[in-house]
């Protein structure tokens, strides 16, 4: 507090905030440098990590200064485009919500960059990875700091593009290329929602700035708020991989694990939640849209948990758990201003925890060389340090008291119970499910007999799994550092945020929050903890007995229907395939057929017809005088009779 007061007097806050575009520009510059300019690898790491680190430092300084400064700053750079009478400007907004997100993005970005230094030490294309990492940070910061929907949309698409490039990082693998294409197409199709929302806003109220929209949208009658609400929800669902559109996130696990840690678990997928939080006033005006957000939240909560419970690959299970946690976030966001505060709480804590888990999984897969649960097990002895990091994340997620997960989910359950009791109960059941699949994951990976063999040293393939089976792990220092920081944050994060966050976000969401005590317990918490305890113990007993035989007879045919649906990720992928991709490709095949058959020789037919009449006509030129004279006389007769007729009529 004291430092912020000191800096405040010197008025440097306005100066620093004034050119906060450096936050975005610097990583962008570094990305350009790494991607385009040929330079030696010697100081690749320093430049790569430095780019992210500087923006993190800048964000921290800004945050500290903001502690004393309640007023949000809008930095107007230049007018982008005036459409009709609406004026769209390129301007950045530094307020309590956006600085928090900036911290989350830049912070985890830096940790992941440090981790990647070790993780990708022998990856030939690591320069491109660090370039793309910096590009992502720049794009995400643009999205988060944007002051209006259009700039947010630019950041939104740029982030989608970087996720496309990172998923398809190892392009030789056909699977990765397919996953990348699917992710990009699905995101862009869903971004139609954001684009049409922008169009509606520009046509109806002539402005796209968040603050202005909040005030003026109420004035415009009719169901425009509802339309905008649903449109934004569509875009948010895709970006945050909510149930109907989650299949791209599960395939996105093809990307390098640090990328998954940063993008597909902590920051980018949270952008959907951020969009809903930013346009909360719109949802307050449109109750139906808010209800839809709640429903989607609950649906995803259960869908994600269900898929995670039956997942076969460790990274896919974590991805499903991310979907489920984001379900919580949507649920909270839908509960109104009070819920929004706790949505941010959940978002921050989940980001940290999931990043930690993914990085742990990264070390694990690099050491073992494979990531499917069938091939893991018994890693406690082999990777003790990773186990500890993973355990911290595990405890935090399932909601062990006094850890960040407990507070985040506790508040959400309490607010849900107050507004809609049914959703509160469902949230509690969700916590139980979460506990089950996380414990299952922990047991299957770390305990039991080791179902993997030491990969022969020296097998040179550049794919991720191959690169991992080096002995011993070079560069593990940087990986350990990030893991420790993230584990500590996971454990202590909740405590730090619990008391302070509602007060901090008060100006943004104007929500009075009562329960902020650290040791706050009420009957709801007890119920959740009881359920938690029962589930954990039950899973441990169940798996202690079942794991050895379960994997051996792991043919899907005889499995329980429930498991089979879960394993197939709720058939979302097949539905997409059959419902959208198949008809599209048949129609385009039909079109290219018409193109080649109908139109191609359409013109030729026309020309042949004319040609044939010409030949027919030439037959008239028989060459003998008889026909000519006959034609001549007939012509004269017709002409004269025409004249007579004309005169007569």
């Amino acid at each position, binding site marked *: 507090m004291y430092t912020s007061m000191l800096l405040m007097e010197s008025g440097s806050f306005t100066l620093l905030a004034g050119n906060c575009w450096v936050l975005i520009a610097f990583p962008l510059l570094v990305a350009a440098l790494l991607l385009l300019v040929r330079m030696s690898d010697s100081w690749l790491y320093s430049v790569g990590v430095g780019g992210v680190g500087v923006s993190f430092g800048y964000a921290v300084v800004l945050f500290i200064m903001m502690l004393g400064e309640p007023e949000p700053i809008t930095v107007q750079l230049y007018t982008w485009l005036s459409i009709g009478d609406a004026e769209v400007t390129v301007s950045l907004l530094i307020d309590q919500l956006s600085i928090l997100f900036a911290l989350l993005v830049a912070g985890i970005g830096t940790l992941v960059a440090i981790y990647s230094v070790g993780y990708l030490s022998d990856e030939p294309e690591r320069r491109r990875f660090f370039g793309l990492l910096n590009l992502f940070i720049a794009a995400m910061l643009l999205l988060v700091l944007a002051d209006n929907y259009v700039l947010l949309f630019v950041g939104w698409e740029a982030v989608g593009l970087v996720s496309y490039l990172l998923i398809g990082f190892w392009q030789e693998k056909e699977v990765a290329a397919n996953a990348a294409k699917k992710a990009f197409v699905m995101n862009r199709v869903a971004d139609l929602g954001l684009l049409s929302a922008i169009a509606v806003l520009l046509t109806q109220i002539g402005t796209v700035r968040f603050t202005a929209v909040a005030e003026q949208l109420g004035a415009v009658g009719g169901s425009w708020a509802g339309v905008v609400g649903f449109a934004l929800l569509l875009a948010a669902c895709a970006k945050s991989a909510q149930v109907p559109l989650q299949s791209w996130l599960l395939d996105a696990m093809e990307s390098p694990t640090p990328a998954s840690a940063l993008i597909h678990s902590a920051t980018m997928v949270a952008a959907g939640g951020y969009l809903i939080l930013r346009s909360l006033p719109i949802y307050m005006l449109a109750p139906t849209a808010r209800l839809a957000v709640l429903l989607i939240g609950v649906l995803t909560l259960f869908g994600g948990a269900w898929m995670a419970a039956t997942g076969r690959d460790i990274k896919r299970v974590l991805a499903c758990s991310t979907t489920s946690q984001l379900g919580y976030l949507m649920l909270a966001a839908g509960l109104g201003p009070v819920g929004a505060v706790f949505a941010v709480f959940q978002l921050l804590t989940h980001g940290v925890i999931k990043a930690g888990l993914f990085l742990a999984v990264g070390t694990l897969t690099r050491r073992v060389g494979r990531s499917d649960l069938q091939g893991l097990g018994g890693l406690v002895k082999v990777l003790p340090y990773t186990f500890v990091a993973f355990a911290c994340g595990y405890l935090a997620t399932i909601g062990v008291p006094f850890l960040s997960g407990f507070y985040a989910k506790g508040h959400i359950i309490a607010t849900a119970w107050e507004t809609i009791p049914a959703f509160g109960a469902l949230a509690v059941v969700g916590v139980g499910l979460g506990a089950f699949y996380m414990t299952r994951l922990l047991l299957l990976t770390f305990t039991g007999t080791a179902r993997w063999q030491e990969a022969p040293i020296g097998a040179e393939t550049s794919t991720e799994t191959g690169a991992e089976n080096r002995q011993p792990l070079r560069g593990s220092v940087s990986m350990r550092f990030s893991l420790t920081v993230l584990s500590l944050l996971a454990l202590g994060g909740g405590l730090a945020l619990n008391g302070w966050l509602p007060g901090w976000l008060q100006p943004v969401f104007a929500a009075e929050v009562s329960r902020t005590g650290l040791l706050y317990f009420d009957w709801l918490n007890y119920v959740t903890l009881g359920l938690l305890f029962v589930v954990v113990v039950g899973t441990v007993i169940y798996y202690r007995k079942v794991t050895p035989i379960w994997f051996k007879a792991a043919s899907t045919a005889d499995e329980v229907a429930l498991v089979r649906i879960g394993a197939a990720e709720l058939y979302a992928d097949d539905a997409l395939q059959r419902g959208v991709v198949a008809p599209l490709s048949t129609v385009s095949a039909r079109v290219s057929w018409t193109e080649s058959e109908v139109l191609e020789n359409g013109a030729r037919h026309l020309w042949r017809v004319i040609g044939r009449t010409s030949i027919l006509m030439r037959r008239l030129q028989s060459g003998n005088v008889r026909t000519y004279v006959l034609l001549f006389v007939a012509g004269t007769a017709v002409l004269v*009779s025409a004249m007579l007729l004309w*005169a007569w009529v």
Partner: protein
Amino acid sequence: MVPVIEYLLLAPCIVTFGAASLSILVEAVVVRRLRFPVQLVLSTTAIITALAFTVRNWTSADARTIAALGALAIDGPAMAVWVLLLLSALAVLVLLVERASNNGLSAFTSQASAPPGSTEENVAETTRAEHTEIFSLFLFSLSGMLLLSAASTLLSAFVGCEVMSLPLYLLVGLARRNRTLSQEAALKYFLLGATASAVFLYGIALLFGAAGSFDYADIAATISKMRSDNLLMYAGLGLSTAGLLFKLGAFPFHAWVPDIYTGAPTAITTFLATCAKIAAVFALLRLLFVPLGALRWTWQTPLALIALLTIAFGAIGALTPRNMKRVLAYSAIMNVGFMLLPIVAASTVQTGTLVSDFVSVSALLFHLTVYALMTLGVFALTLWVGGASGSNSNFDAWRGLARRNPLLAAMMGIFMLSFIGIPGTGGFASKLLLLTLVWRSGFAWLALGALAFSFVVAGCYLRIIRLMFLEPPADLTCATQPSKGVSVLVSICAVLLLCCGLFPSQVADIFSNMIGLLR
């Protein structure tokens, strides 16, 4: 009282006719060796002096009278047409004497009387005998055309028509290469020509019966007074128009054009296509505007239909033939359709005088100039490129011309583009002028129909352009080197065509300072 003949005004006709008779005399008197050069000198000087006289008359503004006891209307348009005719005749003369393109032999047979393939023919060939009568026939036909285009009475029109046609029947039959074909064409032309003259004469008789006089002015006066139910008048109108339309080769009477054009030697085909058509269309214009102007309501729409059908038949016909001259024949038919458009576009004012005749006449003259340039240029090029194979000028001679002789291909390209009507060439300016005129007088469907068919025929012209520019040359023999005259003629035509296209106003002004048709 003593008949007053304005000799000065009639000088061009007198000169050409006199030269024609003189050339017969030369035929009889001059020794064989000298006959060709003498004939050549005689006909060139005749045409040039006639030209000089016409220009002098034209420049002296006062010389505008119905001359020769009312037989000829020497007025502005007539003189303009005469200038056009004489210039085209001069150009055709160049083609007549062209020898270099078919290795030193004249395009005409050495002894017309020898049956094809007979020994006499071989003897005539070896002794390099020459038919120099073509010059006198040519001059007779030319004087007939001058007469026809300025005719102010029905009879002088008929006489002019006959004097023009009869020598042409002969000239068509004199081709050196595949003589049987050209003799057959001549016979066909003669038979059809005779029928047409009969119909024309019958029309004139009926008109005389109805109006009581041959003179255009009197006919006009009687028609404006009489009631409209005089069937005789309409029958006469129909028949006389049919007669003249045959000379033009318009739709119902176009059947002869392709056969005769391919049969006749190229020089004569050019003569037929340019001068004969100019004289005939102008005679038709004068016939329909001056005496029969009041009957505009009767002949305007049928004539519009004929024009459209002519363009249609010309366009569709041109698409498939394999022979360059046949294609040009069909495009000539199409252009006749366009020539009829200004006549169709006549719009009378209550007073019965054709107010727009001035505009139609100048539009027609502009189009005729452009048409003459195009046709002369294209036929000269056919002569040049056809070379030894002058007669069977199928398309192989043209294949890959751009690689062999780029300048030649460029000039042929200009002519083809002008036929299509690409802006920047004369064809475009004349099409725009004609179609605006027609649309303004209410025949929108005719204008758009004409455009549609000119798009169809563009396909045929493109085939030729494609042959020249994009196809690889069949054999790399360079196009035979023609005599200087033909190459000069072709380049003049191309250059004039381009300036007609780029600066049409200046060209059109020449025709606009003459006053309208004399009554």
